[in-house]
């Protein structure tokens, strides 16, 4: 029997907090999700019973900590349906995963005159590393634009794809508009031109089916902290054919095989890409978060979140003067909007005065804001513990702010 989704809320201790003496309504989940008690306990338990530096240690704690850490690698591999745990590299988060590939793949495979394609829907973390890598390598940076619905035009993509393209980097779900990109098709198109694809799954891995083999992604990046796991841990999945050919990114510690003043050799995958003491505790927290998610029936969870999104969109659309951004065929977990005559920042602050946590601004997606010609939006974003009551509170809060400001 899978766990009842409506029972989730009680697992997250922070959700009982009050803000300004009002119950917290947390709708900033695309920025970071809250953590269930089981994840918090996994960290405390690790530090209270098992903590040691891993891999090269032979004492009992070191062996136990190593086994726990490597156990999570297997868990992540199975969550992503990767064919081997050796393809799972632990990083600090999506940003580091992308930077790792930008540095390492860039150094090995991108030279002057080559091209890299990203989309205009990217978070800065999957945009700027490629832009800077292009500057370093003398390559050209290409951007697939989005249309009035907030969707990428695949015809534009096909035209950008040339025999100079070395890599396509694209998110599965836009953190700013919630657009679910046709990522399988993008991978297919890129592969038909023999170009590898990095998928930024930061906003997808917790909401949508996650099967890197079905997707056939060459690289897949995500952050733990957006999927109920601790901060400080993320993942880069990669196909072995690429990872094995790529040089290390950071060096030192674990990732070394042999060192002399004139020669260095590196450890096997995945260790080659994990320099320094790993963040064992937070990796174990990630394992606990995956266990937490796995208690639910994922299809049911997805349906629940989709229903919630539709409910929220309908509520917001009914508010006079409120404009929702984007109208993609498939949207996930994100409600981006503005209210006529109210600055996004003011709306955010006044909602917070009512205990409602949303994010306002550019959401690290300046290219989107520039294209929409707006300074920013208010963004409410969902997680599995949100309820219709949260969205009722949001809609009610917005209406009160409108009354206050428009008096």
């Amino acid at each position, binding site marked *: 029997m899978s766990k009842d989704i409506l029972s989730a809320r009680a697992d997250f201790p922070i959700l009982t907090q009050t803000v*300004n*003496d009002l119950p917290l309504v947390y709708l900033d989940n695309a920025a970071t999700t809250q953590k269930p008690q089981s994840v918090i306990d996994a960290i405390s338990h690790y530090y209270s019973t098992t903590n040691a530096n891993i891999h090269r240690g032979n004492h009992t704690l070191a062996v136990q900590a190593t086994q726990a850490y490597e156990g999570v690698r297997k868990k992540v591999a199975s969550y992503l349906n990767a064919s081997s745990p050796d393809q799972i590299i632990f990083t600090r988060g999506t940003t580091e995963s992308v930077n790792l590939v930008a540095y390492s793949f860039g150094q090995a495979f991108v030279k002057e005159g080559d091209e890299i394609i990203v989309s205009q829907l990217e978070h800065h973390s999957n945009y700027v590393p490629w832009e800077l890598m292009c500057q370093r390598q003398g390559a050209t940076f290409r951007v697939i634009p989005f249309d009035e619905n907030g969707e990428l035009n695949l015809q534009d993509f096909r035209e950008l794809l040339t025999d100079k393209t070395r890599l396509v980097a694209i998110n599965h779900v836009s953190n700013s508009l919630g657009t679910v990109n046709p990522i399988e098709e993008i991978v297919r198109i890129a592969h038909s031109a023999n170009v590898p694809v990095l998928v930024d799954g930061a906003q997808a891995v917790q909401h949508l089916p996650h099967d890197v083999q079905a997707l056939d992604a060459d690289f897949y990046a995500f952050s733990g902290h957006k999927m109920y796991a601790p901060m400080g841990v993320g993942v880069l999945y990669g196909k072995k054919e690429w990872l094995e050919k790529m040089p290390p990114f950071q060096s030192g510690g674990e990732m070394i095989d042999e060192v002399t003043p004139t020669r260095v050799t590196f450890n096997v995958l995945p260790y080659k890409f994990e320099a320094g003491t790993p963040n064992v505790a937070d990796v174990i927290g990630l394992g606990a978060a995956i266990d937490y998610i796995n208690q639910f029936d994922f299809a049911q969870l997805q349906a629940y979140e989709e229903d919630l999104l539709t409910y929220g969109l309908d509520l917001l659309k009914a508010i006079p003067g409120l404009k929702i951004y984007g109208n993609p065929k498939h949207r996930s977990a994100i409600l981006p909007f503005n209210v006529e005559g109210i*600055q*996004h*920042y*003011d709306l955010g*602050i*006044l909602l917070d*005065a*009512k205990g409602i946590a949303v994010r*306002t*601004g550019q959401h690290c997606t300046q290219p989107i804001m520039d294209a929409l010609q707006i*300074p*920013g939006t208010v963004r409410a974003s969902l997680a599995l513990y949100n309820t219709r009551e949260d969205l009722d509170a949001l809609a009610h809060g917005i209406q*009160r702010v409108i009354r*206050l*400001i428009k008096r």
Partner: protein
Amino acid sequence: MPKKETMKQIEQNLIDDFALLENWEEKYEYLIEMGQDLPRMDSALKTDDRLVKGCQSSVWFDIHCEDGSLVFSADSDSLIVKGLVAVLNEILNGQPAEDVLQADMSIFETLGLWRHISSQRSNGLTAMMGHIKQAAADCLKGQPEE
């Protein structure tokens, strides 16, 4: 327009006013009203060189030094930031430059507006305060102490 009241007195008045407000909502209502009562800034003055870029809102400051005192007009596209500007206006506008240089932002904490004092320097209130203090320092340099 040099002021009669000292900064301390003005701050106390503000603290007394805000103390009457029952909750956050009323506080922000009052702050927004203060902003709406702020003397209008000539829109010709809203040029890029007068823009203090904040994180999520724009503020324009036009600052002059008059007889060793700081005189300014200001505006923002955010009603709340405009309210914060109004607080700064109450306390600092027309005050001697050396007093302005001594000013700190603890008043905002006392008023319950602590959230607007972020330690990221590019943020609104801190950026504004930095701007004003810079002007005060320039004012003092132009008018060496006797």
